[in-house]
């Protein structure tokens, strides 16, 4: 055997004693294989740790949602697993007449559905037009949207509130009011969709128009079927957004409990002093909100990734 210390330059040596030509794995390669395995193991360890850390809060949330507010404490306690597993919280949320949870859930679903449809229409209209057509004022619009986007969103809360009030769309009319606000300015979020449309070759448009189709027909019959990923992405994003809006929803719907969305209702249970012992019910509510959304998201994950990475790559 050759020296184990020297790293051989070649893969084969001639073993004169045995009279054969043998292939010897150089030390470098052999230690590299071990090195590689060590690296992989440490990566696995890190990934497992990360998975635990990432999922832990949700697992805890689920645990605490099974701690009954009737038999044990509904407030915060300093232990994790309930002494008795019970469905009291869920039962209360879904059936008790003093719980408006189902109402809030329904409100949020309605808002989310309307937003999903209307916002997608708005966004696609804008991004298609800006991508495909050249007209006077196009650059102006794009720059204007960029500039407007730099203003913080809450700046205009009070103005929007009074605008809605003039139209009687606050408090008990909060749901149409919120939908109006969300949808009205949604055209400004055209950037990712436009990037997607830019990748569809213009030659498709040209050949269709030569055949006599109007732009509207081109849009409907040729581009839209190709745009399925971005359409689904836009719908998904528009659907998920209203579930988390606490700030604006609470501002517009104050005083009218049946018009809250889930975010406002659940937030109050945790942070407002009038509601003692509602913490576990908050956890249960949180689980009921999070599970369907997560499932929906996982089902459509492919489109989300396409939209996000497509947009990022385009810059």
């Amino acid at each position: 055997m050759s020296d184990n210390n020297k790293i051989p330059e070649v893969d084969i040596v001639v073993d004169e004693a045995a009279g054969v030509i043998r292939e010897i794995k150089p030390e470098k390669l052999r230690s590299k294989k071990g090195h590689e395995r060590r690296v992989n193991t440490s990566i696995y360890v890190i990934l497992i740790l990360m998975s635990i850390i990432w999922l832990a809060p949700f697992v805890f949330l689920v645990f605490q949602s099974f701690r009954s507010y009737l038999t044990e404490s509904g407030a915060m306690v300093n232990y994790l697993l309930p002494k008795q597993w019970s469905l009291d919280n869920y039962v209360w949320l879904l059936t008790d007449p003093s719980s408006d949870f189902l109402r809030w859930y329904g409100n949020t679903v309605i808002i989310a559905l309307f937003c999903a449809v209307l916002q997608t229409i708005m966004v696609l209209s804008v991004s298609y037009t800006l991508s495909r057509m050249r007209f006077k004022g196009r650059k102006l619009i794009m720059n204007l949207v960029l500039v407007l986007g730099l203003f913080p969103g809450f700046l205009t809360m009070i103005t929007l509130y009074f605008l809605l009030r003039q139209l009687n769309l606050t408090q008990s009319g909060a749901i149409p009011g919120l939908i109006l606000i969300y949808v009205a300015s949604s055209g400004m979020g055209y950037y990712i969709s436009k990037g997607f449309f830019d990748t569809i070759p213009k030659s498709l448009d040209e050949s269709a128009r030569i055949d006599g189709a109007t732009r509207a027909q081109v849009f409907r019959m040729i581009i839209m079927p190709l745009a399925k990923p971005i359409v689904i992405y836009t719908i998904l994003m528009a659907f998920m957004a209203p579930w988390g809006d606490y700030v604006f929803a609470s501002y517009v719907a104050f005083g009218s409990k049946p018009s809250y969305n889930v975010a406002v209702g659940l937030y109050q249970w945790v942070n407002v002093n009038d509601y003692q012992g509602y913490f576990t019910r908050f956890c249960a509510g949180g689980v009921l909100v999070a599970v369907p959304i997560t499932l929906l998201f996982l089902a459509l994950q492919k489109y989300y990734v396409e939209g996000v990475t497509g947009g990022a790559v385009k810059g």
Partner: protein
Amino acid sequence: MTDLEYFKLSKPERMIRGIGRFFLNLPKKLAGGIKKLGLLIVSLFKGIGTNIADLFTTFKNGDWKTRLSYLVMGFGSCARGQWGRGILFFLFQTVFNLYMFFPNAQFSGCYYLGKLSTLGTVATYKEGRKTVYGDNSFFILLYGVLTLFFIIAFIYTWRMNIKQNKVSEELLKNGHKLKTTKDDVNSLMDSQFHKTMLALPVLGVTIFTILPILFMILVAFTNFDATHQPPGKLFTWVGWDNFRQLLATDTTSYGSTFRHVLLWTLIWAFFATFLNYFLGMLVAIMINKKGIKLKKMWRTILVMTIAIPQFVSLLYVSKMFAADGLINTYLMKWGWISAPLPFWTDPTWARITIIVINVWIGIPYLMLIATGILMNIPADLYESARIDGANAFQMYRKITLPYMLFVTGPYLLTSFTGNINNFNVIFLLSGGKPLSLELAGNAGHTDLLITWLYKMTVNDTNYKLAAVIGILVFIVSAVINLVVYNMIPSIKNEEDFQ
């Protein structure tokens, strides 16, 4: 310095030169920018000038149909057979007149315009025990601005009306046919398709974004706060007072608080963006590495956290870190600490905790993006590097990192700007606390400019200061965007040198 000499320099020296060059160029670029702005304004005035001149010539040279259109919009179009356009113009004029000169003076455009300069003078008074409300400054300002918008729209439309008359006259003179109403409607689906598609979005954005922003900018110059609340009280213009208060250079109250909050906002945005970016990239590389199994599973576990609404996860996590929350309780139970850790009560601890929790939120998202981009890097680049004897770290530095930075440069910029306005994370986690004697206006040590703005609006109803803060946030974001956007090409140039 010649190109050869430049190549002889080492990387750090090149970078220093690059930065030096950037700052030296800055005044030149600023001057260039201002010159461009000046030219823009000049061209605007010139445009107005030409338009006015054109108005006169059209009147002089036009036939009776055109001249009558100066008074009655749409007359010319109708007279020449373009009924659709004509009627639309006329309708618009009628509605405009109705609005401006509405019989009930209280609601007419002229009423609001008149009061705009004083924002209301009639105070609320009591008749016996009944309250009789006087002027409402808020609505005077709001509708005043709306009226101004409307007037501008009217002038523009009237001008279009005249121009169309002129064009139609020319066409007819030269023997061409005019577009019929049917042609107009059809073109909406074709050559004018952009108008059809953009009508609603533009309308929505104008009423619900541009108008409110303009309104709030104007509010920044008034004294609209808790002691000047309509409908009971009036507020009025105060000029630059609010700006002076917030930008005061002395070390007391609002001025110093503003600087304090601004500094933290920038620090936070920096860490939130770049920490998430590099860690996300690292995680993506780890998962992507050859030899790691169950790639999809790892990615899915992490990505699930994006789906869960932030208000659920953040609210819960903030309670977890409370002084008597789960984490402190268990750490104490296991004897690792003897007193609860001051996650939310000590300013520095609070800031670090927020940054760390934000990493928890942000990594899945960044990992997705990084994975998508990593998959696009051609594998043979790595192969040839490995054959040349590069180790993993060198490959990362010379291939992965530059490529990622190149592709996601603009994304980093938008992410940074977005983090300056990242309301949810701060508000739900710490509410901007802890407060301190040094910070005025209820600002806390973890407050961003935008959470401070929110507190001003909702809790203090101090709208004038909130408006000023909003404007300053805009200026900060705009400056950063402008500066960085011009730096990105220089990164691109480095690529070529590579």
